[in-house]
């Protein structure tokens, strides 16, 4: 019968019309990110970091710009840990390259911004800000 296929299709739509909703009401409702999720900003654990720069060496797109300082006791410190998120491929290679697991993602996916410069941030500076704010 001509038009039967259309009716069958319509029945599918009707069935779902009264069924469970697939969508979530973002931003009121947010889907939690998975354990392995890579995205957002890089968090640097300065206590663990040994300033070896292996992360920057693993980066395919030179998105990491690190400055290491040597203090009077010949100890190496990470002075700036600049992540140019605009260049980042979110490949996770930096996190995997770190021998002491000092890196992780903050998993905040709402990281769009108006200006390109705002994509670049300093993970060390972010740590200071966090300390100040408790």
């Amino acid at each position: 019968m001509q038009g039967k296929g259309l009716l069958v299709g319509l029945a599918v739509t009707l069935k779902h019309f009264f069924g469970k909703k697939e969508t979530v009401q973002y931003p009121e409702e947010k889907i939690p990110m998975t354990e392995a999720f890579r995205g957002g900003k890089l968090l640097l654990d300065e206590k663990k970091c040994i300033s070896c720069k292996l992360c920057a060496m693993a980066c395919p797109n030179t998105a990491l710009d690190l400055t290491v300082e040597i203090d009077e006791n010949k100890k190496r410190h990470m002075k700036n840990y600049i992540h140019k998120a605009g260049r980042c491929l979110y490949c996770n290679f930096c996190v995997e390259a770190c021998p002491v697991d000092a890196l992780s993602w903050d998993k905040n996916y709402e990281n769009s911004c108006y200006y390109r410069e705002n994509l670049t941030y300093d993970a060390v500076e972010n740590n200071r800000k966090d300390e100040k704010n408790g």
Partner: protein
Amino acid sequence: MIQTESYKLSMGPVHPSTHGVLQVWLTLDGERILRADPCMGYLHRGIEKLLEKRTYFQCLPYTDRLDYVSAMNNNLGYCSAVEKLAQIEVPKRAQYIRVIMAELNRIASHMIFIGSLAVDLGATTGMIYPFRDRERILDIFNELCGARMTYSYIRIGGVKSDLAVKVISMIDDFLAKLTDMIDEYNDLLTGNEIFQYRLKNTSILTAKQAMELGITGPMLRASGVSYDLRKDNTYCSYEDFDFSIPLGEKGDNWDRYIVRLKEMSESAKIIKQALAGLPTGEFMAKVPKVLKPPKGEVYDVTEGPRGEVGYHIVSDGSAKPYRVHIRRPSFINLQALDIMCRGYLVGDVVAAMSTIDPIMGEVDC
């Protein structure tokens, strides 16, 4: 006597049904198409050149960005080419995991195909369902490697991480629902008369034409040529699995749709077998920290959702490839657009373009 003249119409690059940024120059005689010239390059990023400046490991994330709808298959193609070049033996477990992921990605890619074909033909509802179901696969990948699109999961020598129990149960869950999903597409689209009128006997590509143009993948199989690298040039333990290759008869739009629809069930079969027979052992081979393959070159092919994905890598013995050339199936398949459109109507261009299923990231590279 009325004087008539052919005229040119530019379709795209900003057009909802050009799958990205493809421009097509149509030469028309009224509504009939005399010629269709695809004009590409709007998404060119020079990936082949970029790869020359990166180590073999660092090249991997760039392959994600070729065919972003089936990144796993691109990862697989690149890794198996490098492994062949550096003579790395991949553990059996890793091979099985690779097969599972590549096939899941094939299903996801074909879902995108069905969805975009539907929306291109004006059936917006038909788009929503496959996209919703594809999301389930992306959830699996997100759980597995932390990304929905650019996975970088398959690595040189194996895979990034082992299959967690949760991921396996998610895959099982998905496979159990797949038959229902495909039934739903059949109800919504396959049986729909308008859909059939639009696709049957339009844009016919004969087997001879397809072979002359070097078309591969489902498009070639829709023309009736049985050529699938998973069977004809087995890699990655595909010989262990029992599956068939769906073929079309005429090579019209309808056949291209049906072949892909059937391929989804075949992929599901492969995944089920791979999960049931998943060997124990390592998921990563021993790969040196600095990989310097011996001087020489290699060309290795795998079967992506769109056809033959080939990587030609030339090594000069250093840690970076001297030259990488990528055979991108979408790029070559798109060349058939002209033949497929000639003599048909403007409305059929959209359907033809859709059944070629090009991904512009791959076309432009």
